[in-house]
């Protein structure tokens, strides 16, 4: 779990961009904090996987993507959905199971989709998104569309056969996939060392002749920088790239996790490196933010979240008569 090979802190680009990145991370953080409350209040049910601690990854990577690019994510995808540009209301209503949810309440937390923003899920099968991403990129390749498909996954997913098959296909066929490994060092309770015979994940990807980079996933500026380079490479070459972001989840895997597998010290150690805290501190050092701006930022976000909750509360339940809708496109067939 050493991070020695991670590059030094990136310089802050400019005030506006830095503030934007902070705002995005905070939006995710506060949204998820609210979600846990609502989970306890039984408004949200099923599995709820929090991204808290890992926000720099989604936010940094999103900077490198255009609206025309595609994203394939996992069940831990609130962050990606938010930074992709989806409305918090649509996401919250989805987690409430309401008809105004982005998937009309059929998906829930693990299955956020958005056609406009080209978010292709929200996939709750570990590794299930790899081939989908390869296929989206294949479609672009065949249609001569110069777009990137960004495939996000945890380090645990790299043990699955689909990682291997998909990396090989993407490289063999030279397809524009940006593979983003959100390495938070655990797959549920299984530490990286217990999951991979080789824990240097970049070297694993390199075995497919895919270029790689590793970045400190707790430093949003560094992630943004690395993701930009990576996606530029994908755009230029039309070929895949593998970006490892070393990060950490501050919360349990899901809402049912006694966290027997890691120590409080370890967690606390990583919390010191909270991407939001550290960016805020750096902004303060630079004099680019003060307490009142921060307060205002928090207020705006609180308002956004409150109205999202409100939206979800107000929304209707899907009619039970529509139970068999969307099994097939031509409604009614079964």
């Amino acid at each position, binding site marked *: 779990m050493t991070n020695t090979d991670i590059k030094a802190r990136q310089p802050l680009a400019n005030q506006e961009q830095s503030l934007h990145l902070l705002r995005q991370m905070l939006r995710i953080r506060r949204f998820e904090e609210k979600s846990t409350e609502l989970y306890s209040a039984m408004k949200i049910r099923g599995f709820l996987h929090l991204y808290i601690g890992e926000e720099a990854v989604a936010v940094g990577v999103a900077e490198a993507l255009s609206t025309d690019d*595609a994203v*394939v994510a996992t069940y831990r995808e609130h962050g990606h959905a938010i930074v992709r540009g989806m409305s918090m209301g649509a996401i919250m209503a989805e987690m409430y199971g309401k008809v105004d*949810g*982005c*998937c*009309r*309440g*059929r*998906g829930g937390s693990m*299955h956020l*989709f*958005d*056609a406009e923003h080209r978010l*292709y*899920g*929200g*996939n709750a*099968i570990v590794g*299930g998104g*790899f*081939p*989908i*991403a*390869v*296929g*989206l*990129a*294949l*479609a*672009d390749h*065949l*249609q001569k569309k110069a777009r990137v*498909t960004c495939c996000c996954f945890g380090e645990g997913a790299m043990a699955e*056969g*689909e990682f291997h*098959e*998909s990396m*090989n*296909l993407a490289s*063999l066929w030279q397809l524009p996939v940006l593979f983003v490994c959100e390495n938070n060092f655990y797959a549920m309770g299984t530490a990286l060392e217990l999951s991979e015979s080789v824990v240097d994940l970049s070297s694993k990807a390199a075995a497919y002749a895919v270029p790689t980079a590793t970045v400190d996933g707790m430093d949003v500026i560094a992630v943004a920088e690395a993701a930009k380079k990576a996606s530029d490479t994908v755009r230029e070459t039309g070929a895949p790239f593998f970006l490892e972001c070393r990060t950490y989840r501050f919360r349990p895997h899901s809402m049912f996790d006694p966290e027997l597998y890691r120590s409080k010290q370890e967690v606390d150690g990583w919390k010191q490196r909270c991407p939001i805290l550290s960016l805020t501190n750096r902004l303060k050092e630079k004099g680019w933010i003060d307490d009142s701006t921060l307060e205002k930022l928090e207020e705006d976000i609180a308002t956004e979240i409150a109205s999202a909750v409100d939206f979800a509360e107000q929304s209707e339940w899907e009619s039970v008569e529509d139970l068999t*809708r*969307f*099994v*097939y*496109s*031509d409604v009614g*067939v*079964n």
Partner: protein
Amino acid sequence: MEQQLRKMTYRDALNEGLREALQKDERVFLMGEDVGRYGGCFAVSKGLLDEFGPERIRDTPLSESAFTGAGIGAALGGMRPIVEIMTVNFSLLALDQIMNNAATYLHMSGGLFNVPLVIRMATGGGKQLAAQHSHSLEGWYAHIPGIKVLCPATLEDARGMLWSALLDPDPVLIFEPAVLYPMERTLAVDAGPVAIDKAKLHREGKDLSLISYGSCLHKCFDAAAILAEDGIEVDVIDLRTLRPLDTESFLTSVAKTHRALIVDEGWRSGSLAAEVSARIMEQAFYQLDAPVERICSAEVPMPYAKHMEEAALPQVASIVATARRMVHG
């Protein structure tokens, strides 16, 4: 005006269907193991590489899960992929992609993303290929909501189902009984797309409904001919589309014959034949003069030896004998 007919094999008909689809729609491409340079493991895609090039006749590595999933992704991305899995036995490696992604995308996304993907594969026994190359799992696949399941048994369907499947907005699996590839028949010169939502009544009779599909359909034809010599006239129904099932087709038949025998190459327990029987039970119980019966494959992994394989598969003789018993008691 008389219909012009051509002689060809079931394999040729599939090949024509593929060629036509590739010609008609630029978004269509074929992807799978050895579909190109080898010419297709059963020679179905022979010649297509020369005509359409390696981008559209795309040889894949041995990676069933990834290239099937890539088909899903490509469909989401605006293409109309045809994924070929060599045989249904290997499709088990891709089942996660088929059930957890292809079949669920539309529903999980609340209608946002449909998956216009066609997956073709060979199925069934009869070629002495033993327990890892011979099973008939198409009826089993028909359990899965969100996909459609077709099984062409005739040249017309081999030629025509593909285009109809490509027009379908949702994932369609086409199962090709491998023993039928060399089957020679005639096909209309102007044969084209066919409906994929209806079963087909191939032969009419009043005494018994023979309900089947795939390679067993031909055994039913043979049985029907033998039974006719005895004066037993049977309806022969080709289910064609295994999901969604055209229930109406066999209920109509049973309303006339009052007796039904289902012939299905799948293993008996949990077979598609069980589903057909259960539906007749539910919807035509009071019209039955005798219990519905099933002839299915023996519940064994397929043995290699010819006589054992034959014993495991439904055969004409047992269809005839069962039908006779059912009609004459």
